[in-house]
């Protein structure tokens, strides 16, 4: 099973500019998590901090009992062998062909014979649909192929944590769907912890078990997918629906005047092209391809979520309960549409205040 990544009070800045501060979350072992956020909110920086490429000024990142922020270089190299990272552009070695690229970690870290290396590499290449392209150089293939080759390379050492930096950027919706399916299938097969950083709404809605969002230099929320998907937080609502109306502006933040002007335009009948329908709500998650083993993560997560369900907002509770089968509902002792019964005595009013426990302090999820 994958390992847990615990992040505590992480703060990162470049010079005077704070990227994000006091990010606290824990990525549950073996589950798929997605970190959402508008462009330029430091999602990639967050990912690079998790693998120790960037050093945050404050806070801890604990993996297997080791704090990545303050451990010696040699230890860092040991821990990194557990990681498989998919970079935005694949980050393939330009001087090697695809086969050598994918074989690189095997040749560096294992004493496998060339025949074994070949077998493993071809297996991973087939997994990402790149059979026949082994001899090509990274410069000769499309961005999507580079991305898939990067994924194959990230997978050869059977990582326990897979980090994907915008797996969808530069891919068409169909290939994105295939890639999402691939990630879920992977999770079913090797039970690795997966973190995807993206701003693709479809990926965010259908792939993860857990969902978080970075905005305005902090973590808006992180928790079970139902929580964010049903959230009334204005930022989340705007982002999920891809609207202009809301706190996110063209530059990171919006001032009152711009917001008022936009509202006035809308009230005057100006169409900004965003859909009227609200896409929030819990949608079915992608399941592993039939024939593969069921994902253990789903069962583990269900137990975990049901044990904390009373702390979640009502909409999320209803979404979760509605997604259970009748057998499960009786197992956990809840009834569909009866979210209120298990809810805390006084449901937290909306909009939620920042200090509400489930929003940012997800350490116990």
């Amino acid at each position, binding site marked *: 099973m994958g390992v847990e990544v615990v992040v505590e009070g992480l703060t990162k*800045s470049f*010079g*005077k500019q704070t990227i994000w501060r006091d990010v606290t979350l824990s990525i549950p072992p073996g589950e798929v998590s997605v970190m959402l956020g508008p462009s330029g909110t430091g999602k990639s920086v967050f990912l*690079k901090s998790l*693998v120790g*490429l960037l050093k945050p*000024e*404050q806070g801890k990142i604990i993996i297997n009992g080791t704090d990545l922020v303050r451990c010696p270089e040699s230890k860092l*190299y*040991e821990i*990194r*062998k557990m*990681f498989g*990272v998919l*970079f*935005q*552009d694949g*980050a*393939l*070695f*330009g001087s090697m062909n695809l086969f050598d690229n994918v074989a*690189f*970690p095997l040749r*560096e*870290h294992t004493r496998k014979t060339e025949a074994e290396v070949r077998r493993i590499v071809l297996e991973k290449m087939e997994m990402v649909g790149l059979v026949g392209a082994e001899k090509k150089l990274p410069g000769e293939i499309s961005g999507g192929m580079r991305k898939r080759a*990067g994924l194959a*390379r990230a997978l050869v*050492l059977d990582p326990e944590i897979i980090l994907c930096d915008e797996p969808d950027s530069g891919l068409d919706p169909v290939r994105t769907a295939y890639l999402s399916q691939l990630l879920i299938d992977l999770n079913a097969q090797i039970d690795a912890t997966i973190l995807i950083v993206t701003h693709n709404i479809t990926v965010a809605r259908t792939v993860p078990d857990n969902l978080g969002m970075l905005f305005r230099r902090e973590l808006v929320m992180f928790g079970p997918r139902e929580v964010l998907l049903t959230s009334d937080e204005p930022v989340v609502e705007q982002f999920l629906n891809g609207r202009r109306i809301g706190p996110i502006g063209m530059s990171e933040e919006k001032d009152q005047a711009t917001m008022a002007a936009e509202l006035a335009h809308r009230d005057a009948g100006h169409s900004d092209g965003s859909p009227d329908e609200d896409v929030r709500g819990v949608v079915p998650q992608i399941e592993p391809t039939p024939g593969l083993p069921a994902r253990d993560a789903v069962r583990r997560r269900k137990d975990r979520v049901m044990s904390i369900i009373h702390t979640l907002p009502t909409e999320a509770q209803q979404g979760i309960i509605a997604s259970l089968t009748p057998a499960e509902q009786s197992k956990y002792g809840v009834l569909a549409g009866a979210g209120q019964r298990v809810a805390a005595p006084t449901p937290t009013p909306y909009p939620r205040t920042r200090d509400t426990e489930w929003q940012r302090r997800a350490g116990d999820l």
Partner: protein
Amino acid sequence: MSAPVPFPGAGALRETGRLFALGIDVTRSAVKRPFQLREFIQQSWFIVSVTVLPTALVSIPFGAVIALQLGSLTRQIGAQSFTGAASVLAIIQQASPIVTALLIAGAGGSAICADIGSRKIREEIDAMEVLGVSPIQRLVVPRVLAAMLVSVLLNGMVSVVGVMGGYFFNVVLQDGTPGAYLASFSALAQLPDLWISEFKALVFGFIAGIVAAYRGLNPAGGPKGVGDAVNQAVVITFLLLFFVNFVLTTIYLTVVPAKGS
């Protein structure tokens, strides 16, 4: 967080410190296994292929200039028989390591810097680190060692070609006597001169490799940053080389007594 109060020159000091840190890292990783033999051979061959012809072409006129200058000088003071001795000394001790270093830095170092810099901006270096492979050990060490090896070998070549060029110009153009030119070779020059020459070349190769790698690993961002980094690498290397040459020469002249004294 309290940012340290910036004072003039702080940036330069920081850069210098990082450069030294990289130098130490490279030295430490050089003795650590596994050694990247393949990469080392490839890089050595690459550096040789870009430097050998320009070096030969530069060293012929260089030897000639020294020979001509010394030839007229020695004639003025009536010491023609020492032309050969003086030009050998000048070429082996000074000219040849400097010519080697300039070409290693200009041709080899710029290529190393551009290569590492473009890998850095394509995130290849990051990817390598994430795959648990130290880019210093995998990429930088073989390149620095290759630069050192090639510069020692080139130094030998420059010495030979320079002395031959000096001989040609002295004998053919200035009517020097071939016998006197050759016979006076060992009048002033001694074996330690050759050692210091090779030692200088070794140090220059190291500096050129480290500076190129350092600038390549820290480009200012974007493809233009890589171009700037290459430019800076060459300039910084030149400045350092002439300074180090001055220091080494001073130490050598103090420590090793001149022949016959």
